[in-house]
């Protein structure tokens, strides 16, 4: 009973409990309670700018917003695809498609934080870690089966979107950051694949792209940007004019075109 009580507050507080070596104190209750207050949506402006406050109205605004943003739009990307050259070797492909091992799945599960939020089916990473000895073989067998046949069961990839406040005040849907809560079982597979993909990134990603590639640092590009600006500022002679662009793509993840992605891979 006492243990259940601790576990409940540990998961609710979402502050990293054991690592921070604290007990079930007022701090964790406070962080759970204040999270609830901040995350509650009281009103939203719809597309026309009308303020909506009813529960049903809020749901409609959110639903419309996401249906709209995730709708595929016709686009012609052939001119981009034409300049992307093959960079994955036969050897890379062999590594990517080699039969999966149980160790890969084990590593994927144990690299997740045990109390990270669970997906729609409610099982947290901690659950899979705790019962790995019992269910590891079954998980491994099932996942390999899905990958072999090329088909996931229909409910595996059901995802909840939780809305986290962005910036200091929340007026419309744009001020809420959508975080996808995938089922942990899906995430295990996704992580296994991501771990393999990581190994070939050096071959297929240009040197000037420094984020997310193992062995490169995003700070490298910040340094380059500083140097470029310094160069432009310090340049006093010569005919050449220079222009720097800083682009921020809004909703870059949400707008990613699937057909384009597949065309890049192929």
């Amino acid at each position, binding site marked *: 009973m006492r243990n259940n009580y601790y576990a409940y507050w540990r998961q609710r507080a979402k502050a990293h409990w054991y690592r921070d070596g604290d007990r079930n104190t007022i701090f964790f209750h406070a962080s759970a309670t204040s999270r609830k207050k901040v995350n509650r*949506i009281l009103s939203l402006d719809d597309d026309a700018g009308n303020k909506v406050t009813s*529960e049903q109205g809020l*749901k409609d605004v*959110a*639903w419309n917003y*996401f*249906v709209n*943003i*995730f*709708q*595929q739009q016709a686009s012609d990307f052939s001119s*981009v*695809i034409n300049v*992307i050259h*093959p*960079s*994955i070797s036969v050897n890379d*492909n062999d590594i*990517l*498609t080699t039969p999966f091992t149980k160790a890969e799945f084990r590593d994927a599960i144990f690299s997740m934080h045990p109390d990270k939020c669970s997906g729609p089916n409610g099982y947290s990473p901690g659950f899979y870690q705790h019962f790995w000895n019992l269910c590891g073989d079954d998980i491994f067998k099932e996942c390999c089966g899905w*990958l072999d046949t*090329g*088909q*996931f069961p*229909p409910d595996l*990839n*059901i*995802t*909840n*979107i939780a*809305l986290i406040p962005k910036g200091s005040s929340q007026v419309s849907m744009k001020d809420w950051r*959508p*975080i*996808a809560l*995938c089922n942990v079982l*899906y*995430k295990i*597979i*996704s*992580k296994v*694949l*991501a771990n393999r993909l990581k190994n070939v*990134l050096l071959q*297929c*990603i*240009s040197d*000037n*792209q420094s984020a*997310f590639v193992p062995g490169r640092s995003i700070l490298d590009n910040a340094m380059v940007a500083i*140097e*470029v600006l310094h*160069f432009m500022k310090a340049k006093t002679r010569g005919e050449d004019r220079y222009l720097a662009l800083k682009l921020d793509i809004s909703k870059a*993840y949400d*707008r*990613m075109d*699937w057909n384009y*992605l597949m065309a*890049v*891979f*192929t």
Partner: protein
Amino acid sequence: MGFHHRWTHWMRMCVESVDYSVLVNGEQVGPIILGRGLRQGDPLSPYLFIICAEGLSSLIRDAETRGTLTGTKVCR
């Protein structure tokens, strides 16, 4: 980029089998049928994103070889 068709299919499975529900004050609203987009929270997303961004890098490299863009030296 020349990925094996098996691998490309796995990526398609992960990205396109998604079914969304949005949580509004703790209540599920959905399903929302998707036609595009990566999920913030899927371990694959960052890698898929930079692979897509490689399109921009390729365009720049292409413009460079054609001479429409030229590089400059900094930090001499």
